Each structure stands twice: as C-alpha cells, then as structure tokens.
C-alpha cells in the first residue's frame, strides 16, 4: 500500500474552509494545512501556525550589514590606509553613514526574503499536494484543507468520515 501524505477536503468558499478547520482543531487535529487562492484572515491562528520570525531576522540582518559596513570603512580609512583627503579627518563619521544606511536596508531585505522562503518551505518544485485532482484551481477559486497523515490524531478509517461531516465539495486522499 502506498504511503499517504494526507487527506484533503475541498471547499467552495474561504468561510466554510475556516469553519471546517476550526472544527477539526476542536476534534484535536494538530497537523493541518490549507491551500487558498488568496490569504484568509485568521486562518493561520486557527491552524496553529506559529508567528513568523521574519521581523527579528530582518532586524538582525540590517544591524549586521550596518555595523559591517561601518567597520570596513573605519578599518580601511583609519587603520589600513589612512590618506589625507581634502584635509578631512581619517575617521569622517558623517561620511560613513550613508553607505552603512543603504547596506542596512539591503541586508535586512535580503535576510527577510531568505527567511520567508525558508519559513514557507520554498523553493520546492515537487510536492505531494500537486497530485490532488483539481489542485490547479487552488490558485483561482478552490479552497483545500489537508489533514497530514503524520497527525497523531489522524486515523485511516475515521478521518474520511470526519471530513465528510464538514460537508466539503469533495474529499480525497493525497498520496505522498
């Protein structure tokens, strides 16, 4: 018998998907995943997705970039090769700020993007959910709720009936 990624139920509207998700959570399911054409408010909380660490990562990245740039400038202009430029001091702090600022913004953004991709498991070109029949509509008007098979509460026989109880459009199993 083939390994199972999970069991999906398709809904027509985000509201009904939201209700279904809530119901499953009440039933004690923890490993849920939803696929919707556009973000649905509150869904993340219902599914118990931990809040993102992206902001912290970006702050760290920005700070690091800024300090790094300042360090390079200070080292090169004061220690490594101090040169008299227009009679200005070697450590011309005000002149060092702009580059540092720009690099801070760049660093933050880069870290943010990386964090976002890592946090949302991208890039990943091949994924079981793509095998779901009609999944291509997930980016248009279809709303899918998936109970992952590794959910401790998940049980081969009962899950399908429990999903049916949420009166979705369809119910199906998703091979891994």
């Amino acid at each position, binding site marked *: 018998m083939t390994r199972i990624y999970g069991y999906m139920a398709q809904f027509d509207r985000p509201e009904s998907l939201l209700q279904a998700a809530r119901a499953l959570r009440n039933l004690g399911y923890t490993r849920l995943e939803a696929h919707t054409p556009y973000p649905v408010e509150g869904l993340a909380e219902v599914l118990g997705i931990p809040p993102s660490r992206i*902001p912290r990562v970006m702050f760290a990245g920005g700070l690091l970039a800024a300090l790094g740039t300042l360090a390079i400038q200070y080292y090169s202009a004061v220690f490594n090769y101090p040169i008299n430029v227009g009679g200005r001091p070697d450590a011309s702090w005000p002149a060092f700020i702009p580059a540092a600022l720009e690099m801070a*913004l760049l660093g933050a*953004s880069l870290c943010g993007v990386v964090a976002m991709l890592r946090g949302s498991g991208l890039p990943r070109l091949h994924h079981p959910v793509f095998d779901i029949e009609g999944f291509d509509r*997930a*980016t248009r008007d279809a709303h899918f709720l998936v109970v992952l098979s590794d959910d401790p509460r998940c049980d081969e026989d009962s899950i399908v009936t429990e999903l049916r109880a949420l009166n979705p459009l369809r119910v199906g199993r998703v091979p891994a």
Partner: protein
Amino acid sequence: MSAADIVGSLALERRMGRGWAIAFAVAVALTVLLGVGIIVLLDRGVGIWGIDVPVAWAFAIADYVWWIAMGMAGTFISAALYLTRQGWRTALNRYAEAMTVFAVSVSGLFPILHLGRPWFFYWLAPYPNRMALWPQWRSSLLWDFFAISAYLLVSILYFYLGLLPDLAALRDRATTRGTQLFYGLLALGWRAEARQWDRFQTLSAMLAGLAVPLVFSVHSMVALDFSEGLLPGWHSTIFPPFFVAGALFSGFAMALVLAIALRSYFGLGSVITGRHLDNLAKVLLATGLFVAYSYVCEVFFAFYSSDQHEIRLTLNRFQGSYAWTYWVTAFCNVGSIQLLWFPRMRANVVVLLTVSILVVFGMWMERFMLIVTSLYRDFLPSSWGMFYPTRWDFVFLFGSIGLFFALFLLFLRYLPMVSMFELRKSSHSEHRRP
C-alpha cells in the same frame, strides 16, 4: 470571467495585437541604437558626447537622474499605499513596480558608461585587491553607488516576491509544457499554503516598511551627488527633499502615462478605473506643488544667503544663455499641473495624458538645467564655457527610452500586469458586502 482571469489570460494567451507589435519594434530599434552608441563610446571615449571643461557632466547625468527618479515612484506607490491600506493600490502596484525595476536598471547604465574608464567601475566596491586600495568613502558618488545597488536589488526582490502567487496561478493555468516549466520554475513551487500566505504577508509588510525610507534615502544620495560639490546652484541643503519630491513627481507622471495607456489599450477600464486616475492626478498635483515650492526656496535662499556667486547664478538662470531651459522647466512642472485643480480636467484622459507627458519631459529638462547652468559659469570668468550636445548625446537619451519600453512591453506580454490574487481577494470581499 473575473478581472483576475482577464489579466491572467492576457499573460498566458499573449494576444497583444498590432499596437503592441509596432511599439515593441520601435523600442527594439531604439535599443539597438543604444547598443551601437555604447560600442562607439567604449571604442572612442566619452569625448563623443558634447561634454567639456567646465561642463564635464551633462546629458548622461541628466538621463541618469531622470531614470532613477522615475524608478522611485513604483516602489513608493505600492509600499506607501500598502502601509496606509489604500485599497485602490491593487490596480497600480504591479506595473508600477515593474516600471521601477526597469527604470532603475536603465538608469544604472549611465553612471557606468559615463566613466572615462567604464571597465574599472568595480573599483567603487570595497574588495581585497593586489593594490591594497580602498574606495574613498567621503565621496557622494560612492554613497550613490551603494544606494543604487541596494535599491536595484531590493526593488527587484520586492517585485518578484509580489509576483510569486500570480506566477503560481499562471503555472496552474498554463496549457503547454513550456509555459508550465517557465512559470513553474519562477513560482518556486508556491502552493498557496496558509503558512506561505502568512510568511508572505509578513514579509510584504516589512519590505513595504523598508521601501519607503529606502526610496527617500536613495534619491537623497542622488541629490548629494550634486550638493556635495561647492558649485553655486549645487551646494544647497534643500537638494535631498527637493530631489525626492521631484522623483515622486516624475514617477507618478510616468505611472499615470502608463496607466492611461494600459487602460485604453487592454480595455482594463474595470480594473484601472477613473477613480485611480483621479487619485494619481491628485498625488501628481501635490508632489508638483512641493517641487514648485523648492524652486521658490532655491531662489529665496540664493538671495537670502547674499552670496555673490549664488545670486549671480540665479539671475543667470533667469536670463543667461540657458534661460530657456529654466522657463521650459517652470512651464512644464509648475504651469501645466495647475489644470489638475479642476475635477473636470482630472476626469479628462487627454488632459491627464498631456499634463503627465509634459511633466515627464519637464523633469528631464529640470535636471539638465540644474547641471549645466551651474557648471557653465562658475567662479572664474576666464574658465566659463558653453555646452553643445552632439548626436551621440541624443542617441543615449532616446536609446535608453527604447530600452525601458522594450523591457516594459515584454513584461506586459509575459507577466500579469495587475496583481491577480489581490484582485481576487478584493472582489471576494466586495461580494461579502450587502
């Protein structure tokens, strides 16, 4: 068929029509011209332009500032409007961001080609080298180098990130293997997961928050390229805000031009509505007034400073050999926009188009005026001189315009010109309303 699907099929079926074909042909022709220009430039040197001593900067720098300025509006529109939760942003942000990316890329060409020895441009970057040398950190040109690089990267990321869900959507609707692979690779395997949506939204918010200060800082750096100099007319503390205002001004003008073009050509009246144009026009007026205010400030400061050189320069801008550039600038950037006070004018597409084209042109003229009038007469009368453009100056100006539109037309053809998922979201929430 929903608005989103219309946009989607535009990208997928690619029936762009004859108008697009002609425009693209023209754009490509101009791009080729630019290519020829670049080859000749590298072969013979920047001397093919009209620049000289004292006017060692002219067209190329004006072009550069002009383009980077237009590159400001896109990010600003989508970021600022996003932060202020402006619903009408949806219709604009995608093509505006595209405009940004292409404008910045084009502008990036000029500072490099403008060098006497372009092949050494990388000396501006700090990297370990066998000369044991470093960049000179006190030069505003260096700050600008960092600013442009940062801004180009961030705006590309910002643009691409916003595209992800739509790329996935196109992937899912694609019928041929080729398009599936193309969009599939770009979509990175986006599954529209709740988790992905959550991370996606957090990052969008964060980037939007960064983009606004970035826009301001980047164009302030551009302004410092001039105001770090001690030339009368350049050495002025109001340059950064003045330049930022000018950037948004020309940016919004360009956005308006494109909006009107897309709307009428692709029949997107339902997406880019009259309300959008009206709002854009209001912003245009607002930024325009700020620019006008800075013009006044410049003159005021010149006389208030009682600095001989500043006063002479200001009078010279009014009456000197290049006075006409000043008055053309004033007419385009201050005069023409006064029409926008009247709702009826804002509702009139022809008027809007004319005004915004005038502004786009006027802002180029402003940069030319600022650069040349300050240079051609500085301190010692003995070294005063004139600037006369050569045909190559125009080749690079129009060539760059061609390159920009070539890129933009390709974008229209292969990518959704309006954010599809946001359209869906908003249409859904509209359904919910009684």
